């Protein structure tokens, strides 16, 4: 592949480009779904193509193609240069990239069992078995079990001399039961909602979830939610657990700290950010116990790799340190705007056909020293909420509202009855400022987000947010229409 890719580098060099690179990407994916006792998806996917990026006289051009011939690669590189020339019609100054050493390297996600080597029938057997357990109650109208595996093989060449080969592997699974009765519909899932849990690794990721041990509980809780009282409205204390806290991190810290959107480059679509650059190192984002760390080296992280798509080596850095805004997600183009001479390395592209853009890295809330039991015992009147159902946040990442699968009432330090339709709403810095306790490392779990959308044309990326349950004081809960 490197031999074919060299054509693009030759064209970029020949035309005097400031910078050029080509990423050849082979994606292999497998998706299986069983729903209501039927096969609802069994898809095997392989795509191969390349994207060429050229910085010509300070302006960007990008083109992609999938015809795997030297002539087609050369034509795509020329197209990228023509596009860069058009970009020069409307520019202020030359784009300059922060320097980075050239690397020649191979990196691969560690794994134990190749998920693509596990027979399809073994996967389907597991799924049908789980599906049958989920449907052992006539009120379950929809049962769903899914498995998902991805392997991305990249060959990345730059005009600066980097020659990087990477193989990124991820595996995931999930199950959901939806109960319907008397105009009410309620769902529960395991390990989490939105297609389930996903980690970097192989079939061992699915085995570690121990799905059969949770199917009965998922079904029974979905049914129990039908008759559960509605989450009350008011200002109460809140404990967040499961993948809900991961999504809270994702939406209110992850996207808010993408430097491209902070600088306004996403204004036309996803929006901008309240966490503007003059706040760096000064702004109180949360209480002093809040530490949020971006980490491209996190074991099992979905954004874990040896290098990002700017050919920058993987790093670990604080976004929020002791409650104060401490960093951003950066690429090589924009990091100079905050005075950095090196990118933190969080620039990635979706497949071969898209240009690399600034992305959320793995971003985790560091554990505290408490436990869920202690968090509960410190609440007089509150709710514990688990697993996300819906999410929405304004375009500066301030006003958010989340809906969860299930809530549990907390009265006088004790976890009580199940509550349906739990929701909460807040303003980002006030909310993180109200965090007064975080459970310890023993309860810390990584949660994969496999469907993060951004950019125009739209791109999807994956990343992981680790967290243990955390307590927030005086939050507005029970927002209903």
């Amino acid at each position, binding site marked *: 592949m490197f031999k074919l890719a060299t054509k693009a580098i030759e064209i970029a060099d020949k035309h005097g480009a400031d910078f050029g690179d080509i990423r050849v990407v082979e994606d292999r994916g497998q998706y299986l779904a069983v729903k209501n006792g039927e096969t*609802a998806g069994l898809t095997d996917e392989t795509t191969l193509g390349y994207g060429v990026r050229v910085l010509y006289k300070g302006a960007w051009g990008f083109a992609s193609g*999938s015809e795997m011939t030297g002539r087609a690669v050369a034509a795509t590189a020329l197209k990228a240069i023509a596009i860069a020339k058009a970009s020069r019609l*409307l520019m202020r100054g030359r784009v300059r990239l922060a320097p980075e050493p050239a690397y020649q390297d191979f990196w691969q996600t560690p794994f134990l069992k190749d998920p693509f080597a596990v027979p399809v029938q073994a996967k389907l057997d597991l799924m049908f078995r789980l599906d049958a357990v989920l449907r052992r109650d006539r009120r379950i109208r929809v049962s769903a079990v899914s498995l998902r595996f991805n392997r991305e093989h990249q060959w990345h060449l730059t005009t600066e001399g980097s020659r990087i080969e990477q193989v990124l592997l991820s595996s995931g699974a999930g199950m959901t039961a939806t109960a319907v009765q008397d105009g009410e519909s309620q769902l529960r899932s395991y390990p989490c909602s939105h297609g389930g849990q996903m980690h970097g690794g192989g079939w061992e990721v699915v085995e570690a979830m121990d799905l059969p041990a949770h199917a009965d509980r998922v079904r029974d809780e979905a049914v129990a939610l039908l008759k559960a009282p509605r989450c009350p409205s008011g200002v109460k204390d809140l404990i967040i657990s499961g993948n809900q806290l991961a999504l809270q991190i994702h939406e209110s810290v992850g996207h808010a700290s993408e430097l491209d959107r902070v600088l306004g480059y996403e204004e036309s679509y996803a*929006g901008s950010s309240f966490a503007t650059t003059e706040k760096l190192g000064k702004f109180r984002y949360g209480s002093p116990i809040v530490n949020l760390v971006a980490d491209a080296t996190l074991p099992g992280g979905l954004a874990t790799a040896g290098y990002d798509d700017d050919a920058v080596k993987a790093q670990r850095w604080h976004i929020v340190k002791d409650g104060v805004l401490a960093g951003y997600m950066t690429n090589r183009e924009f990091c100079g705007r905050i005075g950095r001479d090196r990118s933190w390395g969080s620039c990635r592209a979706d497949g071969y056909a898209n240009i690399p853009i600034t992305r959320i890295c793995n971003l985790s809330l560091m554990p505290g020293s408490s436990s869920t039991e202690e968090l509960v015992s410190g609440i007089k009147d509150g709710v514990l909420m688990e697993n996300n159902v819906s999410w929405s946040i304004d375009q500066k990442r301030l006003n958010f509202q989340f809906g969860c699968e299930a809530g549990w009432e907390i009265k006088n330090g004790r976890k009580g009855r199940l509550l349906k339709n739990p929701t909460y709403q807040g303003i980002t810095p006030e909310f993180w400022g109200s965090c007064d306790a975080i459970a310890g490392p023993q309860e810390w779990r990584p949660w994969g987000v496999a469907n993060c959308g951004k950019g125009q044309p739209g791109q999807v990326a994956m990343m992981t947010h680790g967290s243990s349950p955390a307590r927030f004081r005086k939050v507005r809960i029970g927002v209903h229409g």
Partner: protein
Amino acid sequence: MRKIEHICERILGLAGGVPCEVTAEEREAALTRFADNVISQNVASSSLNVSVRLLDAGRSAKVNLNQADDATLKAALASAREILKRQKKDPHQPALPGPRRLPPAAGLYDADTAGLTPAFRAAKAAELARACRRTGQTAYGTVDNGWSRVTIANSRGVFAQHRESFVTHSVTVRDRDGFGWAEQPARAVGEIDFAGLNERARAKAAAGRAPREVKPGRYTVVLEPAAAAGLVSYLGVYGFGGQLYNEGRSFASGALGKRVLSPLLTIEDNALDGPSAGMPFDFEGQPRSRVTLVENGVLKAVVHDRKTAKKAGAASTGHALPQPNYMGPIPLNLAVKPGQGTLEDLIKGTERGLLVTQFHYTNLLRPLTVEMTGMTRNGTFMIEDGRIAYPVKNLRFTQSMVEAFAGLEAVAAEKALVMEWGALSCPAVRLAGLNFSSSTKF
């Protein structure tokens, strides 16, 4: 690159007598993105995606690929047959359909639009950015264009092909703390009013400066077409899909024939002609029907594919998505029947309320009542005594859309095309009440 017809023939041949369906999408797309009054991203992509589905006596396998050389095709088919062989039978799996007479396409391809150059797109971005610079405003947005062609063929003789071009000019303008937005998608570039869109967004941004805070609560709302479409699309997808209907998870379940929405509301799904026309067949190569979903507030029908139709004891309306599909069939070519008057007339008829340009980050809370939440964005204004009084800071709504559209008070005559899940033609509307549950700081 080999012609797509030959690729389909080759795949059907390689299937070796196993029932086989091929879906191929060719796509050439380019997009110029601008921000802070400069071009920030300028991209083009060229792709062919081929999906091969084998279906044999209740067993199924699907492979997706983007290389069409013989070695890749042979390997893909071998892999699919292997998956098929080891699978148990699924008695609910419908066999492949045979060919049916397809309605003619609505003529949605324009060669000039498909071939717009990077220089054209850059020039359009520059026109706006230069105007903004002169007035201290900042431009953000995109100009994109391209074409796509979908081909569906199967071993029972289905062969359907549809090609369309697309172009969109999307403009966001910032004027200090005021924001404005305008957008127009079209099939042909001649339909796009570039200057008009630029002016609308710039004027709205200027009018939106120094927004005031208003208290959350229930307000009468005048929704511009994009804002209205953002809500109607949820009603369409979560109310009128055959699968959700069968599962009892739609507000239409058990309510067909009943008046559930305002008598002023009529919605149809029509891919065949009209403002939201599109591909005249579904992803199994079956003809799409024109379906009236809501007539004067009465729920009339939901859309089906062959599988959901069988379960419901109804006929397929030709709305299959690529199979197998978790969502089931959904309406992708919605059109809300226009009413009378203009957006200005809706404002004039409002004693006190809010004018909403656009909603942002909408999401579903409860499917059964289509309870949703989302933020206003890029131009929200207080209306007092039939006139726009002042700009307001953005608000979050939380409400059932069934309830909100039961209170539909007025529908304007002018409609706009909006791309949501699919094409959606929608006029501006006025709702008697929308529950705003909180506010934000800008």
